[in-house]
């Protein structure tokens, strides 16, 4: 069997705070094959963005990876020094951010964003990098002349396209998109997703799509990982999970979103709110909100088990 492009093993990330350690990511393991798309879904604060940053070894301070291993293309990410890591970022793994309005430097022309990037990573001369940047803009559906514009002259959707262009400019093996369409309106969102799909095929990308919008992963991802309180509680093929969610949280998540196939079903929100990541509940972290909670759930934390071709961490399936 081919080795996966990315393997994350028992990764834990904590943020130091005055009240104690915030356990943002706990014991997360996942793998990603070349060319596939993994959707990571969860509520705000479920650790999905932190996981994305950890893969770039860029967990923002005061965060720290406390345990685990990340293997990317035969490289142990967490053991690389800053110089090596810098070479990987942008060229091998790149990232698309949530807020396109602030993710471009307002004082650099679009062209300079691209030349900066090429400068950092390769010795391509100026003309080459400009023609490459122009070609990328073509792919993104933006007129080449706009290379000499400043970010404020672009709309949000166009800026996000530029960000995507920057992320793809050096043909990275892996792209992490952290809520790429959250800040955009639905129509632009659809366009951006369409574009990402197209580019994914054209560039043969491997993609991690971090989002709280379950509709987006349904459309884009081959596999889904559902995160809750820093853990992956269910992971498997998208279609399987949508057809038959196993974990009560996944079920709740699907029922709380509008369903286009069954519009008559009313949306049902999950009662309660996500747990405080400093003082987590005992046992299963979801048990205070779980409709199917029983005695064991309060006592012990369920380990992920394999069930119907997927992993699920719930005592119901143990």
């Amino acid at each position, binding site marked *: 069997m081919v080795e996966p492009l990315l393997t994350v093993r028992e990764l834990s990330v904590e943020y130091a705070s005055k009240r104690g350690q915030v356990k943002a990511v706990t014991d997360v393991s996942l793998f990603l094959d070349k060319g596939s798309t993994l959707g990571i879904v969860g509520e705000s604060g479920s650790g999905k963005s932190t996981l994305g940053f950890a893969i770039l070894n860029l967990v923002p*301070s005061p965060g720290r990876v406390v345990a685990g291993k990340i293997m990317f293309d035969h490289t142990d990410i967490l053991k690389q020094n800053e110089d090596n890591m810098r070479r990987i970022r942008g060229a091998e793994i790149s990232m698309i*951010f949530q807020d396109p309005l602030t993710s471009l430097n307002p004082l650099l022309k679009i062209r300079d964003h691209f030349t900066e990037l090429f400068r950092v990573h390769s010795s391509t001369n100026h003309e080459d990098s400009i023609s490459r940047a122009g070609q990328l803009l073509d792919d993104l559906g933006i007129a080449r002349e706009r290379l000499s514009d400043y970010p404020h002259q672009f709309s949000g959707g166009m800026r996000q396209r530029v*960000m995507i262009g920057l992320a793809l400019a050096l043909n990275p093996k892996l792209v992490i998109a952290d809520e790429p369409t959250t800040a955009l309106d639905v129509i632009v969102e659809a366009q951006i997703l369409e574009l990402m799909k197209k580019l994914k095929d054209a560039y043969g990308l491997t993609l991690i799509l971090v989002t709280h919008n379950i509709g987006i992963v349904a459309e884009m991802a081959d596999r889904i990982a559902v995160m809750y309180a820093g853990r992956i509680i269910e992971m498997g093929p998208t279609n399987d999970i949508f057809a038959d969610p196993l974990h009560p949280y996944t079920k709740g998540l699907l029922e709380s979103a509008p369903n286009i196939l069954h519009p008559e079903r009313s949306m049902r929100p999950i009662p309660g709110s996500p747990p405080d990541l400093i003082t987590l509940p005992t046992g299963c972290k979801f048990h205070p909100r779980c409709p199917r909670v029983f005695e064991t759930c309060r006592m012990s934390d369920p380990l992920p088990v394999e069930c119907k071709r997927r992993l699920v961490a719930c005592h119901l399936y143990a």
Partner: protein
Amino acid sequence: MVVIGAITVLAVVMMTILSPYISPFNPSAINVGPLLQPPNSRFPLGTNHLGEDMLSRVLWGGWVMLQVAILSVVICSIIGVTIGLVGAYAGGFVDKISSLVMDSIYAFPGLVLAIAISAMLGPGVINMALAIAVVYIPSYFRVVRSQVLTVKELTYVEAARALGAKSRRILTRYILPNLLPSVVVVITLNFADAILTAAGLTFLGLGVPVSTADWGWDLTYGRQLLFSGAWWVIGFPGLMIVVTVWGFTIMGEGLSELLNPKLREIA
């Protein structure tokens, strides 16, 4: 406001630069006329106790001060911005130490510190500039530090890092250009302070050689002459200092409103 301030500043600077060509007498030549003449048709601003022409002295008198101000502003802006930038970006220990040092400088009254330093260094334009520079480094440091702390958290800095940019490049290409507007404002306001401090130093005799035509120096002996009724010896140089400082301050205030839209909305 900016325009009025800028015109004033420009007028003073032009006057000083052109002084060799437009002043009627050598400002340091004694006995060009009778002693202590009140303003009259031959000596529009009168003469001092050495018979020097006050008009010429007023025209020339900005030289030393402007040189000192420019030099000190250049020195302390470069040092202050660099320390603020590096300290705030690096964070942690480096930030703590640099803040501590800057705050302790800031804790001294400016003029007193400048006096102490220039007394140590001795007179001269460069030494005066150095003394003043040390006093005002914290003003730059503070502004720059607070801005860096905001800017470095912005997504595009994070994005630059995620795309593999080096720290130094992030500092120079992404952070520094975004705080230049505020630095410009501090520079203009700092000019006013530097001129006042320079005037204070020369007034106290810590600045320049006795014969030099300098507003601050004119104040020193003009003060004694004031009691004998010769108001023009101290009055005109004093007025020039006020006008110059006023010009820089007005320009600085105006610029800060112009370059900082948030402030403009409130005002």
